[in-house]
C-alpha cells in the first residue's frame, strides 16, 4: 500500500475519531515528564518529544497486575481472573525503539508452551503506530543493536515527520486497516523524497556506539573475568535501569490478603535487587553488584539470543540517561568488547 499523508493539524481530530473504537495510548505531558498513557481526547497527545521517561511496556505488562482474586481454594469457582474483553488498544506515537521492544515481549509472553493470557488479552487486537525519530539523541544507540530511528519492527504504521505533515508508511495489514478508516491522500514523490532525506539524516546522526558482532561469544567467555567487579563497583543496586527498560520483563508474584481471601499479583521485579535471588535457606547465588550487574548484561546480550533469537536491548538510552550514578551500558559493553 502506498504511503499516505496526514497533516499535523489533523492529528488531534484523527485521534478523537479513533477514540470511539480504541483505547488510545499516546505520549502525554504530566508535570515535566512525558509518559505514555491512556488519553481521553486527541489533543492530549504530545508528539513533539524525544522519548517517554517510562517505556510503553507497562501498557501490556503493568507494573502491578492482579492475576486473580480468591476467596478460598475450595473450588476453582472461588478463583476469579479479572480479565475482561477490552476494546482494542491503539498505541499511538511511540518511538520505533519501543515498538521494536514489543517484538521481544511478544516472544516472552506468547511462547508455545505458556501463553500469558493477561498480556495477550491486551496485545491481541492492538495496533501500534510509531513515529520515526528525526532528531535522535546522542544517547540513542538503536542502530548499534539492529534497529534504527525509522525501524519498522513492531509497528503497524510508521510516521515520518516532514514538517507540517506526517508521512504514514504502512507496515502491516493491521496498519492498512486502521488507515482505511480515514481518507488520506497518497504521499507524492516530492514528500517521499523529503521523508527519505529525513531518514537518511537521522540514521547518519546516530554514531555507532557498541559492537554487537561477536559480543555474545565474548560475553560467554568472560563470565568469570574480574572485570565485572570493576565495571559494577559504582552500581547502587536500584531498579532504575530495569524498570525504565522497554524490554526488561522480570517479575515477582506476591499475594496480598484481602478481608477473607486474597489477591495474587504480578509485579515488576529487578535482577539488580539483592533479594531477587535470595533463597529461603539464606543462600544467594547473586550476592553482590558484580553478579547482579553481570546477570543484567548477560541476560540481554547472551541469554535472550539463546532463548528468543534476538538481543534484549533496543538502544533507547533510558538506562544511560537515568542511571543515578552514570553507569553507562555503552561504556560497559565497549570495555568488554575490547577485552
Amino acid at each position, binding site marked *: 500500500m502506498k504511503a499516505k499523508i496526514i497533516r499535523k493539524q489533523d492529528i488531534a481530530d484523527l485521534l478523537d475519531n479513533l477514540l470511539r473504537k480504541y483505547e488510545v495510548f499516546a505520549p502525554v505531558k504530566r508535570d515535566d515528564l512525558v509518559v505514555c498513557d491512556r488519553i481521553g481526547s486527541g489533543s492530549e497527545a504530545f508528539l513533539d*518529544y*524525544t522519548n517517554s521517561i517510562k517505556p510503553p511496556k507497562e501498557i501490556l505488562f503493568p507494573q502491578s497486575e492482579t492475576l486473580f482474586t480468591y476467596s478460598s481454594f475450595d473450588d476453582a469457582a472461588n478463583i476469579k481472573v479479572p480479565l475482561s474483553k477490552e476494546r482494542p488498544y491503539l498505541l499511538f506515537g511511540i518511538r520505533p525503539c519501543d515498538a521494536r521492544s514489543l517484538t521481544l515481549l511478544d516472544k516472552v509472553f506468547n511462547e508455545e508452551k505458556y501463553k500469558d493470557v493477561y498480556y495477550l488479552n491486551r496485545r491481541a487486537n492492538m495496533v501500534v503506530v510509531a513515529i520515526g525519530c528525526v532528531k535522535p539523541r546522542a544517547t540513542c544507540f538503536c542502530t548499534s543493536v539492529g534497529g534504527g530511528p525509522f525501524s519498522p519492527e513492531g509497528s503497524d504504521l510508521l510516521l515520518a515527520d516532514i514538517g507540517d505533515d506526517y508521512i504514514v508508511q504502512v507496515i502491516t495489514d493491521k496498519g492498512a486497516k486502521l488507515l482505511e478508516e480515514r481518507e488520506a491522500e497518497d504521499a507524492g514523490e516530492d514528500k517521499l523524497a523529503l521523508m527519505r532525506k529525513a531518514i537518511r539524516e537521522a540514521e547518519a546522526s546516530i554514531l555507532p556506539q557498541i559492537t554487537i558482532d561477536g559480543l555474545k561469544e565474548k560475553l560467554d567467555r568472560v563470565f568469570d573475568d574480574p572485570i565485572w567487579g570493576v565495571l559494577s563497583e559504582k552500581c547502587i*543496586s536500584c531498579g532504575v535501569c530495569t524498570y525504565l527498560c522497554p524490554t526488561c520483563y522480570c517479575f515477582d508474584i*506476591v499475594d496480598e490478603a484481602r478481608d477473607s481471601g486474597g489477591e495474587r499479583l504480578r*509485579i515488576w521485579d529487578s535482577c539488580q535487587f539483592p*533479594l531477587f535471588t535470595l533463597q529461603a535457606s539464606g543462600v544467594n547465588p547473586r550476592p553482590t553488584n558484580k553478579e547482579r550487574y553481570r546477570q543484567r548484561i548477560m541476560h540481554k546480550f547472551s541469554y535472550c539470543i539463546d532463548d528468543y533469537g534476538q538481543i534484549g536491548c533496543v538502544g533507547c538510552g533510558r538506562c544511560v540517561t537515568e542511571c543515578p550514578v552514570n553507569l553507562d551500558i555503552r561504556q560497559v559493553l565497549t570495555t568488554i568488547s575490547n577485552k
Partner: protein
Amino acid sequence: MTDLSNQIRESARKLLQQREVELVIGFEQGTLPLRNTPCFIRGQEEAERLIWGSFCDNNLANYLVKRQEKVAIVAKGCDVRAIVELIKEKQVTREQVIIIGIPCQGMVDRRRIEAELEGKEILEVGEGDDKLILKGDGFTRVLNWNEYLYPSCEACTHRNPVIYDILIGDMVEEKATDRYADIAEFETKSPEERWQYISDEASKCIRCYACRNTCPLCYCQECFVDDTHPQWIGKTTNISDTIIFHIMRALHLAGRCVECGACERACPTGVDIRKLNRKLASDVKELFHYEAGISLDQVAPLATFRPDDPEGFMLNP
C-alpha cells in the same frame, strides 16, 4: 576547578603511594555532558582520572558502608555530614577513613539546565569560573552556574566540611538562608491541598528504590519494604503503600538525614522526596535542637530525650 582537580589527584597519589589507604573514592568525568560519576582509584597511575566539577552530585559516603579496607574519600559538605552520621552509627570508623574535604559551591542541577534549554540536547559542556558554556547542535548558551543549583544546594548551610583530614581549596562562606521557608510555606496550605500534593508526588513513584539505595544513611541489610515476615507494606504501586513507604523511610531518617538531596537526584520520575525528609529535619532542629552530621559527639535525637521535651501535642483532658 582544574586546580582543585589537580590537588585531589596529588593527594590521592600521595596517599596511595605512602600506603595510607588502599582505595580513593572520588569523581571522574561522566559519559554524558552534565554528569560526573563516582570512581574508585586503587593505583597511583589511575589518580589522573579524578576530577572536581559542577556535577559531582552523588553522595560518595554511600560507598563507605561495609568496607574493610582503609579508604580516602573526596567529600563535599554534605558527604562529610553523612560520614559523621555513619561514624556515629558505627558503620565506619573514623580511623578507617581519610576525608579529603572540599568546600562546596553547590552542584548544578542537570534537569534544571535541560529544562532551561527546552529539550535542546546539550552535547558539550565547558566550565568557566562562574559560567557554564553549553554547546549543542547549532547553539551555544552561556549560563551562570550558580543560578541552576540543586534545590538541596540552594538550601545548604554546611557547604564546608565539618571534619576533614585534608582540605582542598579554601573554605567558602556559609549562606545565611531560611532553608525551611518552603516547608513553612507548604504548611500554610490546607490539609486537602497537602494530601493532594503528596498523593500526586507518590503516584509518580515506580518503587525502584533508587532514593533508598543512593542514600548513605539507608544502609540497612534488609529494608522494611523488603521484609516478608512480617510484610510491612505491599510491594505494588498502590498509592497507600507508596505513601507509607515514603513516610516510613522519612521517619527512619529522622535526625539522620543530612539533607544532601541524593534521593531526589536519583529519582527518575522527579518525586519531591525531600518534602518529607526536610519537614522532619526542621522538626528535629526545632524540637530537639539537633542537626544531623554536624558533630561527632552529639547524641542522636531519637536515641535520647529530655524530661522537658515538648509535649503540647498530647491530648490532655
